[in-house]
């Protein structure tokens, strides 16, 4: 086939390398099954103008035209390699200029079979990422659930505890450039300190005053607002990345693609959740936690230092939230001032779904919410992806008003 360059026509000469004579150009590319074809003749005709050219090694061609109008672009099928034909759209197409000086006409030949991911593989992939997301939610949710369980407080500022963990890693790991693991440990320690001081400065005095739970909830909404915008004040409105968060990596198990971040975050989540379970079921403080949540004045009458237990719960809950924030920052990936707030509703949904105040319920609820968020867009438009999870929440509570693991209280 035509090995040499382009052939000038009487009306116009246009080679890709030459300066086009005209202001306006028609460009294009010819590819067969993804491979460019060289030496295909393309001609342009219209508005009393006619020109042709041949594609270069990359399959590209350019023809200058004198004015904006509609032109006929024809691919000379004889110049195609044997067996290749133009199917879709035919060998002649119209090129119409819009607002710009260029218009593109691309010829994509051949079957061009796109290997799309099968529904089943998509399902598997999404189940895995749903579980991953669910575990991560669980870390955040258990902290919330513990705090709710012991103090009855629906803490809307929990979102900011999540954000805080990630922001601290950003500060120490990126801005101050400390080694990542030191940054993470520092961040967790600071999360603990934040939990400790929030309880010391705000919640304990309010408990002392005997302020009602809904009032406390409103305080937490105010706190959430203040903290969130404080974050924005210091960190601005844009998204940042943690060290290593954007390293491309691609580990495949069959249809499932995972990054190391996914693996680490799943591992950490599972380990931490087991530790929390052990803490609650086996340790004395864990049992005291549940006792305080049931009846704090009776707990005091049993010799439990209620304030200390609540303090511990705040610290543990904040560390879990901080940790989930860090993992969340790697999972998304990205750190921003409102990252926690964006998933707060999901965290609450998870806690509620599982049964308010039950730590294991929070785990189950989180997994369900995680799965539904990821899976529902197989059927729903993707901008409604939270709808699936929220509708499930409503439906489950219809049949189990006390949540999946919650218990009904006895009457009378």
């Amino acid at each position, binding site marked *: 086939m035509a090995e040499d360059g382009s052939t000038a026509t009487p009306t116009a000469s246009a080679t890709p390398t030459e300066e086009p004579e005209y202001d306006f150009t028609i460009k294009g590319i010819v590819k067969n099954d993804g491979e460019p074809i060289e030496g295909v003749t393309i001609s342009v005709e219209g508005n009393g103008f006619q020109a042709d050219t041949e594609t270069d090694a990359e399959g590209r061609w350019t023809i200058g035209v004198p004015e904006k109008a509609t032109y006929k672009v024809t691919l000379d099928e004889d110049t195609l390699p044997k067996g290749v034909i133009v199917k879709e759209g035919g060998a002649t197409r119209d090129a119409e200029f819009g607002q*710009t000086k260029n218009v593109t*006409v691309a010829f994509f030949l051949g079957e061009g079979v796109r290997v799309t991911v099968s529904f089943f593989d998509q399902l598997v992939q999404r189940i895995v990422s749903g579980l991953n997301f669910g575990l991560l939610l669980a870390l955040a949710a258990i902290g919330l659930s513990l705090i709710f369980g012991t103090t009855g407080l629906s803490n809307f500022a929990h979102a900011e505890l999540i954000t805080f963990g990630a922001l601290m890693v950003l500060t120490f790991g990126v801005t101050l450039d400390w080694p990542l693991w030191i940054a993470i440990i520092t961040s967790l320690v600071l999360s603990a300190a934040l939990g400790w001081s929030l309880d010391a400065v705000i919640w304990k005095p309010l408990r002392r005053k005997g302020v009602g739970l809904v009032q406390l909830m409103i305080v937490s909404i105010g706190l959430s607002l203040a903290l969130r915008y404080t974050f924005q004040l210091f960190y601005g409105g844009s998204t940042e990345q943690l060290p290593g968060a954007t390293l491309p990596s691609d580990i495949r198990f069959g249809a499932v693609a995972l990054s190391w971040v996914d693996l680490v975050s799943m591992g950490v989540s599972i380990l931490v959740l087991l530790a929390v379970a052990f803490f609650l079921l086996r340790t004395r403080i864990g049992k005291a936690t549940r006792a305080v949540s049931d009846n704090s004045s009776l707990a005091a009458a049993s010799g439990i230092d209620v304030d200390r237990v609540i303090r511990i719960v705040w610290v543990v809950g904040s560390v879990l939230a901080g940790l989930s924030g860090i993992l969340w920052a790697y999972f998304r990936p990205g750190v921003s001032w409102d990252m926690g707030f964006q998933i707060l509703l999901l965290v609450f949904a998870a806690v509620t779904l599982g049964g308010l105040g039950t730590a294991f319920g929070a785990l189950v609820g989180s997994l369900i919410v995680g799965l539904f968020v990821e899976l529902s867009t197989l059927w729903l438009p993707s901008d409604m992806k939270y709808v699936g999870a929220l509708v499930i929440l409503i439906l489950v509570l219809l049949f189990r008003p006390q949540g999946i693991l919650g218990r009904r209280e006895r009457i009378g």
Partner: protein
Amino acid sequence: STGTPAPAESESPAASGDALPIAEGERDLSLPLGTILPQSGALAFLGPPEEAGVQLGADDVNAAGAGISVDVTYRDSGDTTTDTATVSVTDLLSQNVSAIIGAASSGVSKTVIDQIVAAGVIQFSPANTSADFTNYNDNGLYWRTAPSDVLQGEVLGNLIAEDGNATLGMIVLNDSYGTGLAKFTKEAFEAAGGEVVAEALFNEGDSSFDAQISEVTAANPDAIALITFDQAKIITPALVGSGFPGDKLYFVDGNLADYSKDWAPGLVAGSKGTLPGLDVGTLGDFTDRLKGVDPSLTDYSYAAESYDAVVLLALAAYAANSTDGTEIAKYLQQVSGGSGDGEKVTSFEDGIKLLDEGKQIDYDGPSGPITFDENGDPTEATIGIFQYNDDNTYSRIGDG
């Protein structure tokens, strides 16, 4: 439907005959401007470059010493969740500003447009792309320098096809900006012979984009266009991390930014993007001067459009020899070159010189050629094509 109104309707500027004469007399004008740009809320990352653009514009006007000085009052637009904008506008109106620059989000602009326009004050948005404003009952007081979706979409669609991509996936922000730009990109790409095989939308405030990414990659497109704002910072690493080639992405003005500090080197090397506005060569030191105003800037989205808004307002006020909003509005179209067949100028000082001579002007600023139609919408733009380097910075490789 969304998107910037097709500028085609008013492609040929009105004849010079309907241009008003430049007002006579000495100029001693003090032009009070207000801004409602996002300082807080979900769009807060857009605020700093926009406010820097406004400030730089005001500085340039004041530095010209041409008998017109601009005084800017900055207020927050928040986002639509907080209803901050109405409070800010009440405040600005009580200070008798002639024009209010903002808001960034079409939703917020809608919230306050009636309030502003009813007070006879100009609303001038550097970023709104919603079609609803074109024929809005605004007494001729709503203007915008926002880049045209139609143009950028066409350039982007053609570019993607020209690069030999037969199929395209899109991840799109569900608002007027995202869906408008996506629509025109899709039209252009399909007209060029390609096929859009997946389009996943997400909402402002969404936190992770896994579902969108797997929806789009499942269709296995040759290229993916990200029509988003800041969210690209999150989507891109996740997308490349899931195995999609990092050189097959296309960015737009909302997210074409310097990511050298954010991403692992080489993550998107070879990927391309479009950005309205003039070449750095033509622009001169515009970005450096912005940095002079706000050294912490990393991103310049809509800075040029904001700058041009101030300069156009000042030129129109100068031409009208008035600081009354309605009077200024009468001259905005003609100083932009939309009527009056004026002479091209690219800076405030040049414009003033010609106006002093009583000549009509046609101002084109750092955001590119600006020509308003009678609805106050821009009809022209230069769209640059950029490509990412190994260090996640980008360089201009041509014009669309």
